[in-house]
């Protein structure tokens, strides 16, 4: 499932870039993400609690920084996570691209491509799409707040 979201971060492009690659700081901007710990170079472990309709999911998995190109303002991440109890997993490729709008404003484009496997796939694409969209929007809002603080 491919999604694209844009948002405005009220910070300079340099500050936004630094924040974006500080995974333990930025990951908890995604609603439900907690306990982010380093697991080797450019690799982090995290857990995420999320509710999709009637189902409560407890994901645990890894976030890897696959590529970072400061010149282009582009970073790519790979996320793999599974919920053992419900029996399902996700695999997501996330690309974030930042562009300077003004010295105090940066536009961020988030492109995600996610594969849902197991029980989670049975919940139905329309409802997962809505949830993923609202999660990305919340992430953008929280990131903007983080950048201001």
């Amino acid at each position: 499932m491919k999604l694209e979201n844009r948002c405005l971060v009220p910070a300079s492009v340099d500050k936004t870039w630094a924040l974006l690659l500080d995974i333990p700081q930025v990951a908890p901007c995604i609603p439900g993400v907690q306990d982010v710990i380093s697991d080797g170079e450019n690799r982090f472990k995290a857990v995420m609690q999320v509710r999709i309709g009637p189902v409560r999911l407890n994901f645990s998995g890894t976030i890897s920084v696959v590529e970072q190109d400061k010149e282009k303002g582009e970073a790519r991440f790979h996320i793999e996570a599974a919920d053992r109890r419900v029996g399902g997993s996700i695999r997501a490729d996330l690309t974030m691209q930042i562009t300077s709008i003004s010295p105090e404003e940066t536009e961020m484009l988030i492109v995600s491509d996610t594969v849902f496997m197991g029980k989670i796939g049975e919940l139905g694409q329309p409802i997962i799409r809505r949830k993923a969209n609202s999660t990305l929007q919340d992430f953008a809002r929280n990131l903007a707040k983080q950048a201001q603080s």
Partner: protein
Amino acid sequence: MIDFEFHSPTSLDEAFGLLDQYGDDARVMSGGTALVLMMKQRLAQPGHVIGLRRIPGLASVASDGNGAVRVGALCTQRQMETDPLIRQSLPLVADTYRKVATPRIRNMSTVGGGLVHGDPNQDPPPSLIALGASVVLSSKGGERIVPVEDLFIDYFETDVQPGEILTSVLIPQAPAGSGAVYLKFLPRTADDYATVSVAAIVDADESNNCRDVRIVLGASGVTPIRAKAAEDLLRQRPLTEENIRASAAAVIGEVDPLDDFRGSADYKRQMAEVFTRRAVTQSLAAGR
């Protein structure tokens, strides 16, 4: 199905205590028609299930003296269809519950269980919202009354807080002389969920002017949807065919259906308009 422990409290206080003790790992069960299915599919995996059946006083239907009816959360949906008081004072409610699934399911599933399940495709919520019904949510700290209209927050999510149990529903009567219908569009089978559904209550004066109107749609978004823009196009206006058509057309902008095997979102939007028009027209005729 996974292992779980079943508790049968005999009082609400005992049930609140169990909810306190087991927190997130506990689920409350009344009829079980929804929860057991979800547990079989492993979509819900509570370690503790708290059955409410042995708690006395939760399955009564009684007039509250002001024209409204108080229905206990454990009343079965079949009871709602057949109870003489409901049939006489709340015919819209009796008719709506008659359209839920099959008699086998209606004999098991309960009024309160259906509401807290929060499935936007269910039949009763649109009619209950149209009538201005409220639910009583009880907890250790007391009771709070929430209009059914505000109970549904998101897809399968309700305003019921941890530690709370829905104990009864207060349903006022429709205004005297008004007409009310619940229409359920069922292109597949008679016991299916609706592709779209509409509850309408129209209160018109002798000159056919609309004193008040309520239009609520089910299966048209992540929660039941009250079509306020469509209502505003009719309230205090003549109930002409032209005005009813314009009102129904406004529903398209108010619903936000999900694509599924019962129809695409676009098809459901079109059907929401058609069934709103029919529901308002039939309610007007029923009130005469």
